[in-house]
């Protein structure tokens, strides 16, 4: 009686799991301003996301209920929010990220302390409140108004998986700059300011000597991929996601062009929400050359082959991953072997190598972190044993003198024994 019910529940759980990964909570300054982002939201819906739009002060806000996350991704387009309604606070958002969920944070120069500290938690230091990115050398004109704070940026990171492209049109940006610590391993500057742009608050006097965040040192958009593969993107401009920027015709450098914002923000958001650049490694296996079975372990100097399948998942479809920089290590405290894996174009990466002449407990390690792709960290333990007692070659012609000498020593011992026993 209860069995069909349980089965039904299990099926439901599986189905809801399969559908997971696509629900987005979007928090705006005010739910009424949702129509400013319709084009952006439509792009997300077309990519299969269900977007729930709410104001940040909404008293019914919930990210987590009874220990279960209600959403997979979070968009924070509320730069001025000092706190949130409902049960959301900074710690909740950090827990959300810690459990592998993704956050897209858009701010502007009115950024609140809450948003600044959240960005700082992600490893991105936003410039002071009130500062803006200016570019007086290549100011762009939008709707007939020339505006030095309107940046037509095109200095994208060389990682097509994050940014898409290549784009002919510039990307429009208006907002606040950020700095990323140069030794940060997890953060990537996706879009940096043009060489002539700088970040400054016009209401304050310039420091002497001026310490400006300028050029490539000023990050407009920063992507962070945490060690648990959760992704966070901090954009200094929330406007660049708005309809007016997505559909804008901008005049920059004397030319009138459309903007690349639409494709760019769509690609960037899909990357943020794990819809692009996700690597799935599976079916790690290894065997002796000439045998298909995976052995329990190896003998020193064996010739072996290591294989692993790596697929790249994009938009729910997996296709073979192709790269020449995936490497495998064969480690016993030190990597005795560290070699790049060759791929066959169908997602199988392999390496043939000779097991070192050292015995002990070894590990295969594939530790792959390529900018824009989720990390691969695989380990597998393999013992390597020395030759067995009966595996040495024997009855070798060139070793006969040694056999003979050992035999003669035994004979000598017998003769000596006889002599000792039978003479006085």
């Amino acid at each position: 009686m209860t069995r069909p019910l349980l089965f039904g529940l299990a099926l439901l759980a599986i189905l809801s799991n399969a559908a997971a990964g696509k629900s987005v909570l979007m928090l705006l300054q005010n739910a009424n301003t949702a129509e400013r982002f319709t084009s952006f939201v439509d792009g997300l819906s077309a990519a299969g996301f269900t977007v729930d739009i709410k104001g940040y002060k909404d008293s019914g806000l919930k990210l987590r209920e009874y220990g279960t996350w209600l959403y997979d991704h979070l968009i924070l387009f509320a730069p001025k929010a000092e706190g949130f309604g409902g049960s959301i606070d900074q710690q909740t958002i950090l827990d959300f990220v810690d459990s592998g969920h993704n956050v897209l944070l858009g701010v502007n120069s009115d950024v609140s302390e809450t948003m600044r500290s959240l960005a700082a938690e992600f490893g991105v230091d936003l410039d002071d409140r009130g500062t803006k990115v200016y570019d007086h050398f290549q100011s762009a004109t939008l709707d007939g108004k020339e505006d030095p704070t309107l940046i037509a940026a095109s200095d994208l990171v060389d990682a097509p998986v994050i940014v898409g492209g290549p784009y002919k049109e510039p990307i429009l940006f208006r907002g606040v700059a950020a700095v990323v610590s140069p030794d940060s391993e997890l953060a990537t500057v996706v879009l940096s300011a043009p060489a002539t742009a700088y970040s400054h608050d016009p209401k304050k006097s310039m420091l002497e000597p001026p310490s400006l965040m300028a050029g490539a040192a000023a990050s407009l958009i920063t992507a962070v991929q945490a060690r648990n593969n959760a992704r966070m993107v901090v954009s200094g401009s929330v406007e660049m996601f708005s309809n007016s920027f997505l559909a804008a015709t901008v005049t920059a450098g004397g030319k009138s062009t459309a903007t690349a914002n639409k494709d760019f923000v769509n690609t960037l958001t899909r990357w943020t929400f794990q819809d692009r650049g996700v690597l799935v490694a599976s079916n790690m296996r290894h065997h002796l050359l000439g045998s298909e079975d995976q052995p329990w372990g190896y003998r020193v100097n064996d010739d072996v082959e290591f294989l692993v399948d790596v697929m790249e998942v994009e938009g729910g479809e997996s296709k073979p991953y192709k790269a020449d920089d995936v490497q495998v290590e064969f480690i016993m405290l030190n990597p005795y072997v560290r070699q790049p894996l060759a791929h066959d174009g169908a997602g199988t990466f392999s390496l043939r190598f000779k097991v070192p002449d050292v015995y002990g407990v070894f590990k295969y390690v594939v530790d792959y972190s390529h900018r824009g792709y989720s990390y691969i960290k695989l380990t597998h333990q393999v013992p390597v044993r020395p030759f067995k007692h009966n595996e040495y070659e024997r009855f070798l012609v060139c070793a006969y003198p040694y056999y003979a000498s050992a035999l003669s020593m035994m004979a000598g011992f017998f003769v000596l024994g006889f002599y000792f026993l039978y003479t006085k």
Partner: protein
Amino acid sequence: MLAEIVKAFSDEYKKTPVRVKVLDAFLVYALATAAVQFAYMLLVGTFPFNAFLAGFLSCVGFFALTVCLRMQVDPANKEFSGISPERAFADYCLANLVLHLVVWNYMG
């Protein structure tokens, strides 16, 4: 001068009991075999290294054990007066057994 030394040595050596002289002959034999093997290894190469080690060490081990026996049965050596030659020989036999067991194990 050298001739005098050799003569003094051989005169002295003639006083050694025959039994000890025989032991000395075996010592020379073991050393010679070890030397021949070493020369062969230099000529042919170290390839069956375990076999070389086994053959070489069987000679060296036999030499060492026989030296021990010689010390214990030499009547001129008073240090081992408490040990009878029969007891010394029994020890020698046991040690040789172990030695050759190891040697053949290692021979491969």
